[in-house]
């Protein structure tokens, strides 16, 4: 198998996903509406209720809208990761997953390509969101818009790998509602996306600890620092390790010898 084969296959998978996303206008709009509602409505309502101290990477007092912007970027990627896994379950039920799985490439590579495709879509969404946020007076240093690109790649891969792992366990499309309730919502609300750790600690030390070790929090913090041109090493390493663990488990989940595919009755 040549390098060219891998390259063509990866572009085939990524290109297909991007094309589908661009042509599905409703999906594009709904992916943007969710964080924008949070930004324009939720954040505006909470602005008065939640006082924020000066904490890194911010060097001055900031509006609540500014604080939750990285959290909403994380939200876009979290929902996109889960959407990708939903589409994997759908593809499996519809059978199109089989075409991918019987092509002559290693399964880990195919899954990674799928992840990259989903992450590419989420990065596109994030930049459109940031462009709209700009007109809402949420500005970051210009270099921050470049710095977040690699962090978005890593956080997108990590959240996508989690979705992939979940999709290897989900038997039917109908079971996906459970993922919303048991994974997405706890992960989002138990994180630093909406409130800082110190604020959470004031109400519950236990919850703040859970939030601290939540990989989604670490991904959000990594994005937050990158948006202001800073590198949060701990968050980066934590997110990277989480990605590797989720990915390894997902590969096992999709392995015909060890995984769940046989128990579920098909890829």
């Amino acid at each position, binding site marked *: 198998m040549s390098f060219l084969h*891998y390259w063509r296959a990866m572009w085939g998978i990524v290109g297909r996903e991007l094309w589908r996303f661009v042509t599905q206008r409703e999906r594009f709009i709904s992916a943007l509406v969710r964080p924008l509602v949070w930004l324009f409505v939720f954040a505006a309502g909470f602005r008065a209720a939640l006082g924020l101290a000066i904490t890194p990477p911010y060097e001055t007092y900031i509006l609540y809208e500014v604080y939750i912007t990285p959290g909403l970027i994380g939200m876009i990627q979290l929902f996109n990761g889960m959407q990708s896994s939903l589409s994997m379950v759908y593809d499996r039920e*519809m059978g199109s997953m089989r075409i991918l799985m019987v092509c002559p*490439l290693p399964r880990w590579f195919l899954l990674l390509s799928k992840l990259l495709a989903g992450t590419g879509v989420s990065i596109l969404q994030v930049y459109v969101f940031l462009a709209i946020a700009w007109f809402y007076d949420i500005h970051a240093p210009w270099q921050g818009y470049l710095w977040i690109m690699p962090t978005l790649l890593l956080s997108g891969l990590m959240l996508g790998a989690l979705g992939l792992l979940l999709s290897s366990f989900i038997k039917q499309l109908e079971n996906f509602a459970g993922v919303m309730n048991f994974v997405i919502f706890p992960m989002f609300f138990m994180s630093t996306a909406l409130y800082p750790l110190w604020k959470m600690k004031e109400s519950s030390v236990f919850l703040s600890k859970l939030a601290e070790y939540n990989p989604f929090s670490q991904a959000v913090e990594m994005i937050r620092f990158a948006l202001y041109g800073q590198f949060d090493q701990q968050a980066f390493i934590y997110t990277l390790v989480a990605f590797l663990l989720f990915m390894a488990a997902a590969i096992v989940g999709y392995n015909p010898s060890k995984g769940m595919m046989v128990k579920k009755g098909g890829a």
Partner: protein
Amino acid sequence: MSLQTALSIENLSFSYGGKKALDQLGFSINSGECTLLLGPNGAGKSTLFSLITRLYDSHEGQIELCGFNVKRQTRQALAKLGVVFQQTTLDMDLSVMQNLRYHTSLHGLGRKVALQRIQQELERLNMYERRFEKIRQLNGGHRRRVEIARALLHKPALLLLDEPTVGLDVPSRLAIVEYVHQLVAEEKLAVLWASHLIDEIYPEDHLIVLHKGQIKAKGTVDEVLLNTGTTSIKDAFYSLTQGEQA
């Protein structure tokens, strides 16, 4: 052209938990042979296909595609395989061309070669004019033609067909049956075709009758009739499966 073994299966067994789905299967298919796999529901046909395509993995027995072990030399083996699954596996929102280009990229074909092959395969199936139409706009028979074209784009040695004519009208069904037999005769393609429909069998075809995970009969049509002491495939099938429907 000398006969080459496209598919070789030895002592293959597979269980779902404690329930045996396939029991000590063994057969081979040469290039230029069309083998019909007959069996009632639950006989193990789909499980066998899942094992050949390595969607499942078996710990007992071995499967070789053109001499490549499916488990140990998976990629080389899968490169020799073209598959049409029972369920449509085309992307409904993409065009015929986009679906086929996706497949060629998965098989590492460059743009020029891919476009040549797509044109060649679609023209043979009278579908080239419709290459820019979305799959959703095509009827069942045309979708099947696209899937067959897709399965042949990377020039496989073995074509697996999992009941590809189910749900099609008679003219579409006959056209596909005829086309596949033409490929076998002219291109020396090896075909393993799971079917419920006895009228899809040609006199020169090979048969494998699978029942409750075991091979009850295998050989040419004449050999199976001779061994079962029957005069029609329908009777032979009934006697081998104690009256169950294919």
